[in-house]
């Protein structure tokens, strides 16, 4: 299992155990993480699972695809470390990663 910590916009930490091969978004929904909406259910079609990835893990999570960049245009307060959590696959290298959620998803 891979440990991933979600930090909400109030600063509260929640750590979940994520299975390899699932997406970060799926683990948020399964664990009732607030501030992740995932309106489209993981289709990279809505930009409501937007997170900021911890700088230390940016290289490991890789760059957003073109399609994901297009969707990030619809997100708010996009930063260089912005990602859609439905497009981040859980891998052992991501163990200990923290992601922060924005104060709203639209």
């Amino acid at each position, binding site marked *: 299992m891979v440990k991933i910590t979600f930090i909400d916009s109030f600063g509260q930490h929640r750590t979940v155990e994520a299975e390899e091969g699932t997406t970060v978004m799926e683990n948020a929904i399964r664990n009732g993480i607030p501030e992740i909406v995932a309106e489209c259910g993981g289709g990279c079609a809505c930009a409501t699972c937007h997170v900021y990835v911890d700088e230390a893990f940016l290289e490991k999570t890789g760059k957003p695809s073109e399609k994901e960049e297009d969707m990030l245009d619809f997100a708010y*307060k*996009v930063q260089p470390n912005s990602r859609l959590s439905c497009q981040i696959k859980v891998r052992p290298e991501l163990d200990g990663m923290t992601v922060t959620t924005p104060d*709203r998803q639209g």
Partner: protein
Amino acid sequence: MGEAIVTDVVIVGAGPAGLFAVFELGLLDIKSHLIDILAKPGGQCAELYPEKPIYDIPGYPRVNGQELVDNLLAQIEPFHPTFHFGEMVERLEVLGTPEAPSFRVHTSGGEIFESKVVIVAAGGGSFQPKKPPIEGIEAFERKSVFYAVRKMEDFRDKHVVIVGGGDSALDWTLNLHPIAKRITLVHRRDDFRAAPHSVNSMRELVAAGHMDLRLGQIVSLRGEAGELSAVVLKGSDGEAEIACERLVPFFGLTMKLGPIADWGLNLHENLIPVDTEKFETNVSGIFAIGDINTYPGKLKLILSGFHEGALAAQKVHRYVYPDKRLSFQYTTSSSSLQKKLGVN
């Protein structure tokens, strides 16, 4: 205001559940009109994931959203449904009695329908433009901030800021350019997902000095009494003001329940409770099928919407043809059903 359109059933929403309901109703000689806020049929399938494969439609190991919609349209073609796109049902008047219901339905486009039955197949609600989370933006809405261009005259001789990188943003940049005083297109990156020829036209205008392109995100608005005087842009090199009188942000669509909330239906967490025999709501003659309804054990699957439409049609028949007995028939063997489908 024109004359009311008289029909058996008004279906609110032209997604898969609404489309297949046309088929089940058609087999029972019931005519329907469909109303949808989008400009095309298919609902979420066509709007959110036209190219995504779906794996849980019975009989299709794999079908993408648009293929499913196209097949449904072909399947209901024999029943000649009438579509009313780009319209939202705003008001619903309950006429008649619980035993013999009838309704008057008013759309945002000013159309009026008179029907015996209303089937709500509105999925997650109606698609509406997303609003950027800029503090105080509400005070400027409809005066100087618009989420769609309805009247081009509102933009004549104004300095207009358009936000976005898709086709809506680029199309309106090019369309408003001849009449606006100055257009500034704001996008968070120098990469656009709009059609390449519109991006090229925009870049030519920028190169010739006829309009501006700025990269970044709008973080606040300046102005008074709903009249915008400037927007504040946050780019990679800090914040800057752009003087302007109009702001048109294109941030995509989100689903909102919308006016359905005011139709007198019981609601449970923005869903409409129904029974599982007829999928009828607390108001006789109003049914709810697909993702918008709820009942014990509900699964938000397209196949559930199909099943619900088939069962609802049986009860709809009683309202539309109170004196006719309904006998159950199969399309494989019934010559009368085959005749309706035009295959016999």
